[in-house]
């Protein structure tokens, strides 16, 4: 018995390394598989897959501004991936990141338009805070409904998404509608310049068409903070306990409901950042042409990144490359850019399958080893 106890941590560490190594291998294998499937589709279109992939890579990395654009594309995806992942760690699916960031854009726009007497140093943080509060409040509703009434968060958050979209449409049509005379487009007035997110394009000597802002380093910082939260704080531990086995977590004295509400609020806070680069780094107003789908894309990013902050940052950058690659596909090939979306879909599916295969293989081997140890134990004794 003593050998089994002392052997356990050693085994779990080596199996964890094995799992991580296996997952990296799985990702590479899955990416190759997706590349082959995508290649077949490209060949069917009569194009050379190698040329197409080279074009994607070229558009994403050739010049400093291309790399900056990849980072710009990745910025909202990192936040939405993190938002999905923290909820998932507690065993919940936040399909509502979409609606939460849309509400965040709305409350941010209100702050940018009506707090314009604040100096820039205070205004930008106030706008960000407003976005975060709005998104978190929007996330609080399904969280409370789940904990108090048992309403499943997948259903409620999807409904909340629809309400969010309608609410923004109503707001920019009525109270926030631009007062400019010529504008036929539906949007708010332009925000004051001091409400906008400081750009990194100019200090880096990049053209102003690149909307890389301070939000990118903030996104990376958020990855670190989420990691710290999940793996180094008490609440993070509780969250993971609830997510992996709510029964044992409850038996261990954790209040499941409280942990779920808290983590859903954190998810909402992260969601609040998702729309900000578009709103404060690019457009400078909230119009009916705001970017949609970033919340849903976050689900894919979280899956690709195995819900780990580092994985999320990497997969957001990967998707950022593919988004930038769409321009290359449109401009240099005769392919429909939907090919890259197919590629993303195949990639996600094959990555998830590959992860699962690795997990099962490692678990099976572990089980076999345990059996060997247990079989050996009586002989030792």
């Amino acid at each position: 018995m003593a050998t089994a106890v002392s052997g356990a941590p050693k085994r779990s560490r080596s199996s964890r390394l094995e799992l991580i190594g296996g997952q990296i291998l799985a990702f590479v294998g899955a990416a190759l598989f997706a590349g082959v499937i995508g290649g077949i589709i490209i060949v069917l279109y009569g194009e050379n897959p190698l040329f197409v992939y080279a074009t994607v890579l070229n558009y994403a990395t050739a010049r400093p501004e291309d790399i900056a654009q990849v980072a710009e594309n990745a910025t909202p995806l990192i936040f939405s991936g993190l938002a999905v992942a923290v909820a998932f760690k507690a065993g919940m699916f936040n399909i509502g990141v979409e609606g939460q960031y849309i509400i965040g854009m709305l409350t941010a726009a209100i702050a940018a338009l009506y707090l314009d007497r604040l100096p820039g140093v205070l205004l930008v943080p106030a706008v960000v805070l407003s976005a975060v509060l709005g998104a978190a409040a929007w996330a609080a509703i399904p969280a409370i409904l789940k904990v108090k009434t048992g309403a499943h968060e997948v259903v409620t958050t999807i409904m909340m998404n629809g309400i969010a979209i309608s609410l923004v449409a109503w707001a920019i049509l009525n109270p926030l509608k631009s007062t400019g005379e010529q504008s036929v487009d539906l949007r708010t007035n332009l925000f004051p310049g001091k409400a906008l997110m400081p750009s990194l394009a100019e200090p880096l000597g990049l053209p102003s068409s690149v909307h890389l802002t301070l939000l990118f380093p903030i996104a990376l910082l958020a990855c670190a903070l989420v990691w710290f939260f999940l793996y180094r704080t008490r609440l993070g531990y509780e969250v993971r306990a609830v997510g992996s086995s709510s029964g044992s977590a409850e038996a261990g004295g954790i209040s499941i409901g409280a942990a779920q509400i808290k983590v859903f609020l954190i998810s909402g806070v992260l969601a609040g950042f998702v729309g900000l680069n578009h709103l404060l780094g690019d457009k400078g107003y909230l119009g009916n042409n705001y970017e949609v789908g970033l919340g849903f894309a976050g689900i894919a990013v979280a899956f690709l990144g195995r819900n780990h902050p580092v994985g999320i940052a990497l997969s957001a950058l990967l998707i950022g490359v593919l988004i930038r690659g769409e321009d290359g596909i449109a401009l240099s090939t005769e392919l429909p850019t939907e090919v890259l979306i197919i590629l993303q879909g195949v990639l996600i599916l094959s990555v998830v399958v590959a992860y699962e295969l690795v997990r099962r293989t490692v678990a099976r081997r572990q089980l076999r080893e345990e059996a060997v140890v247990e079989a050996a134990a009586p002989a030792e004794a």
Partner: protein
Amino acid sequence: MRSGKWLVVVLAAGLLASACGGGSPGESPGGGGSGGGIRVGLAYDVGGVGDKSFNDAANRGLQQAIDEGIVDEDDTEFIEANASGSDRDDNVIALADEGFDLVVAVGFAFSEGIDKIASDYPDVNFAVVDGFAKEAPNVSNLVFKEEEGSFLVGAAAAMKSEAGTVGFLGGQQGTGLIEKFEAGYTAGVQEVDPNIEVLVEYIGDSTAAFVDPTKGEALSSKMYDDGADIIYHAAGGSGAGLFKAAVEKDGLAIGVDSDQSLTASSEQRKLILTSMLKRVDTAVFEAIQQVAEDSFRKGFQTFGLAEDGVDYAVNKYNDNPQLLSQEIQDELDALKQDIIDGKIKVPTEPAA
């Protein structure tokens, strides 16, 4: 739990696809510019090629330029806006980055973006269909004299009306844009017969008025009930409601922008007298030709009857005595000539 997980995976993949969807099937032969010809990039608006409307009309203009040898097909590219239109600016930038001689932005919604982008690319010319971009040395707004085309269809309505009452269904009120259609239409009606009454209804005062066929149908039915036997719409997608009401009330309807007889159902097209054509293709072709001849005109370029920028539609469905008889067509062509010659001045604002 496990099967639930898989469901979510599939869902996520699907959602991602829809999230990134509305992309841009770019028809664009590889390789850089050939010879010394000009290079032209088109930024289509939401809907893209195949929308049977603005984008397709712009594409026809490009094709015409290719057919006439003004631009080599290998020197043209296009990008379509995504479903929400959030990437309009990015698409224009991507085209400008490629160093095209001309970037045509198909739709007024590009205007404000072009204001910001144009100065970064002094060697690229930008043309905005229906645009209101600010004056710059390399920016041209291609706008139309909608009132002149509306005048002709108004005249056609007056010639055809038996009830002595016709109707006008407008989309968004208050911007002055749709009022141009109303003013021309009313003037055309009165040119033929000052005694004919013109009923006027607007759907709303926001852009949502262009995508509300239900209200379009209700207001059209009301005007038919009030005695109008022909109604002209300038209400974008809401116009579909007019065509439904026309079938319901057995009235005649007049389409707008493109030849709507061609896209209507068979029972509707029997009732479509004609359509006011906005020749986006002419404008796009013209812009390409100007760049090719190094005579790009900045500011606002207006396309009226004289420039073939607006017209009334004749097609195999309405070219008959039941709808647009030869006599009516002859009279309309005479009026058209009068406008071109300046004998008739068409107002741009409705009479107070």
